[in-house]
């Protein structure tokens, strides 16, 4: 459980971090919270020669609001998300999600940017980013670009970030008033990745579904949207039959990989169950 030798860099500005990335290219890895990368290094599955720690770049941390847009620094820890009154009021889905990530020790080091940028379908934030329609701010030598979450996750551990880019911020439009949301996660134990999890953002009008987005965790090579389920729900009253149908459609859209958490059949079924749970809870949280 000892990594191969590596050089450690702790830049204090974003340009300095990008300069280091430009210098070392594929030999470097960014250290955000470290809770995915460091275990892989200790097991010697990953062996970067240069580790660039973003922890000293103050502007990468913090949670703000600009109009209806919530802006979260990529190095904001899960603990800060759990404790944020701003998020509790305007984006409770993110707080509910972060509370279900690992344990207090991990949440005090793990960051939302690290969770998203790692490209692991088992991480919890990617599905939530999809459900919330988040935009991710990437900064490289050529400047800044903004990528929607729907175009960010390319494959397992593969994202739209270029090797010389740093994710600096996550931008999320506040869901319209009256919306309800929920992150429902099935896990074996504290600290485990989801067997399956579903993020739901829902808005009802006159007893019918006016808008819904559903993101799924750990049931495909990347986090995915349950688009068929969303389409089936639009315009319908969310009775038991509609919710069960959405669960079934979400199940069918999964491509889970078997592991000790379960085989493909179980994970599909659980994705459907988590969609149902999240829909019921989100519905109960809708107002108006």
């Amino acid at each position, binding site marked *: *459980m*000892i990594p*191969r*030798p590596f050089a450690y860099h702790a830049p204090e500005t974003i340009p300095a971090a990008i300069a280091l990335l430009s210098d070392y290219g594929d030999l470097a890895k960014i250290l955000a919270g470290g809770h995915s990368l460091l275990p892989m290094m200790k097991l*010697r599955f990953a062996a970067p020669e240069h580790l660039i720690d973003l922890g000293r770049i103050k502007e990468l941390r913090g949670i703000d609001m600009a109009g209806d847009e919530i802006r979260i620094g990529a190095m904001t820890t899960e603990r800060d998300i759990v404790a944020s009154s701003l998020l509790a009021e305007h984006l409770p889905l993110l707080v509910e999600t972060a509370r279900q990530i690992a*344990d207090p020790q991990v949440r005090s080091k793990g960051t939302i940017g690290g969770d998203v940028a790692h490209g692991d379908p088992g991480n919890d934030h990617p599905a939530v980013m999809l459900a919330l329609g988040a935009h991710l701010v990437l900064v490289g030598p050529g400047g800044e670009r903004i990528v929607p979450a729907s175009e960010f996750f390319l494959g397992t551990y593969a994202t739209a970030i270029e090797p010389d880019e740093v994710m600096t911020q996550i931008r999320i439009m506040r869901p319209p008033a009256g919306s309800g949301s929920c992150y429902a996660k*099935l896990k*074996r*134990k*504290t*600290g*485990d990745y989801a*067997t399956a999890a579903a993020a739901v953002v829902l808005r009802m009008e006159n007893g019918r579904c006016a808008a819904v987005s559903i993101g799924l965790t750990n049931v495909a090579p990347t986090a995915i949207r349950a688009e068929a389920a969303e389409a089936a729900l639009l315009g319908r009253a969310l009775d038991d039959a509609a919710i069960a149908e959405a669960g079934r459609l979400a199940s069918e859209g999964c491509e889970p990989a078997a592991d*000790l*958490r*379960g*085989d493909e059949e*179980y994970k599909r*079924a*659980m994705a*459907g*169950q988590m969609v*149902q*749970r999240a829909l019921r809870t989100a519905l109960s949280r809708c107002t108006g």
Partner: protein
Amino acid sequence: MNEISPDLSRLERLEGIGCARKRREDPRFIQGRGTYVDDIHLPGMLFGVMVRSPYAHARIKSIDTSRAKAMPGVQAVLTAEDLKPLKLHWMPTLAGDVQAVLADGKVVFQNQEVAFVVADDRYVAADAAELVEVEYEELPAVVDPFKAMQPGAPVIREDLAGKDVGAHGARRHHNHIFNWQIGDRDRTDRAFDAAPVTVKQEMLYPRVHPCPLETCGCVASYDAVRGDLTVWITSQAPHVVRTVVGLLSSIPESKIRIVSPDIGGGFGNKVGVYPGYVTAIVASIVLGRPVKWIESRNENLTTTAFARDYWMTGELAADTDGRIKALRVNVIADHGAFDACADPTKWPAGMFHVCTGSYDIPNAHVSVDGVYTNKFPGGVSYRCSFRVTEAVYLIERMIDVLAQKLGIDKAEIRLRNFIPEEKFPYHSALGLDYDSGNYAPALRKVLKAVDYDGLRAEQAAKRADPNCPTLMGIGITTFTEIVGAGPSKSCDILGIGMFDSCEIRVHPDGSAIARMGTISQGQGHQTTYAQIIATEAGIPASLINVEEGDTSTAPYGLGTYGSRSTPVAGAAVARASHKIREKARKIAAHLLEVSPDDMEFDLDQFRVKGDPSRAKSMKEIAWAAYNNVPEGMEMGLEAVDYYDPPNFTFPFGSYLAVVDIQKDTGEIKVRRFYALDDCGTRINPMIIEGQIHGGLTEGFAVAFGQELPYDEQGNVLGGTLMDYFLPTSMETPHWETDFTVTPSPHHPIGAKGVAESPHVGSIPCFSNAVVDAFAHLGVTHTGMPHNAYRTWQQLRDLNIAG
């Protein structure tokens, strides 16, 4: 009126048996001031790491250590070839087999030790280990013990070729280790033939691991000038380790010092001697410098001492009222690639023959076959006495199977079959002599406490409601443990009887030091042993310093495992205390100029019978022991006792669990768990409750999540804590505890031992609850662990999922 009676305040000051005294160990642990093996740093100390096999079964074509040796900071790389001249490439196991220290031409399990790299620090050692080049030729692996016993199965142990007889009798196949039988087969078969009702159930107790928080490790330090070897080691049995090291190294035991410092949990994982210990010692002798070896978590979970892996088939014969007439058990025991079980020499299945349980079963027969597979060795007792968890699991599951077949309530069938109180001491059909027990009142107390009838009514209502989102299950176990190994006539390890010991020295000021052959790993010996001395010798517990674990100061003992500390060493403590007390009586009589027969012991003093104003306190007597003793008496006040118990002790308990199973996901919530334990005399109720909470939590972990599965190629899956289930406070249910007291008649203070009962008793209780939830659908058994995945598959098969 507020005055406390003088007797009461003296009693409180003693903090003796029955006092909920706070643990003396905790101030150092909670302040991070404990000393574990990895806290030991010696000048010039080197660090060793193992190079391990990626294959479960492969021939080693070549090992090239040149690149590793050339790396700066590397001091040595050992392989089997280096150990051969010392005859240390193989070592004896505690079970009469041999185990490769470093692989000798072939590897037989994944992660087997192949080479040992010693370097200036652990970072260099880890880098150098990657440079050791081993060329393997992969061989077919066999991980299923039934397939291992088929005619054409791969030969796992080529070193045993031609050996038709092993340490436990004849071997009938190249992967067979032993067949062990006990009981009267013919009588049992006849009882089955005559019985109107029989049931049969197969069950696997899966391979699990004790997984102590502190992994195994040691620091070996050989002083070439003095010729002394000191080894700090996380051992539950330091004196046995000293004897083994002496046998292996030919160094006299007087030149070997084994020290078990603070231990971060053992649970059976730290009884044996592992290859890393041998290689660290050899490296220290060869290099003349201290060598540290510490396991990683993955190494701990996949190489040192698993538990269980018992494939059991149980059968019960009964009359139509559910009265049991006979028990028949056949076991295939997967021991892995080397037989390294920790069992008494004569009993290769430990005390599995306690499997008649708390029930008056007139006929029984057990047959156990030990089998080699390409898995890591072990077969230790994970928080249980030798194979007792397996035995209790079997009988407590079987009696439920019988109850379901006959439609008899699961509490009622137990009440009908209990060994009645008047039959104790009870001689079981499998030859054990139960010391004491009173089972029916314990079960009735539990049933009343939880409103059992109300629970069954709630369950019936839920079963009748097809829209109920959960299944409700009620599990009961009424188990009997066998602990306190043991009488030397039955139990030995490497030929050494399983006694234990205590030495007490009372200082002139009346304080004392006490040393034992056991070693605490969380049990709180420093606290509870002092309480025994306080009550039995009248010395306040707060003035007694309890020391264990250093073989150069402590008397020889067999160590701490199998809940043997209180039944065996605790008895030695009581008897050594009595020796102190009897000498004190004579000194007191001398000081008061009366006959010793006229003195009576009173809490912390001796007083003259009929004249309580004339008394000498133990403090005064201790002072006199060093300056004014009767003529002809030796000075000083100390005693030693080596206690060979006349019998085992048989703690028991009644447990009840209520579970709710989510039909949509298979998740199980333990709604209620009520644990009544009877461990005889209770020394420290607070420590007992803590032990029970810990044991129940580990039982919960085993029942609901722990397992070490393998794939067909012999790759061990789940060898990290990402997969291996260690429950946190988030998962752990609320525990309710209760007790009755039925002292052991043969133990000096009537104590029986407790730490393992909650583990042994709770695991079948959880399984019984889970099966009970499905019982109305015809299910008689579901395998552990009862995780959501497995449970959902059961729901799916019954068409009630989601």
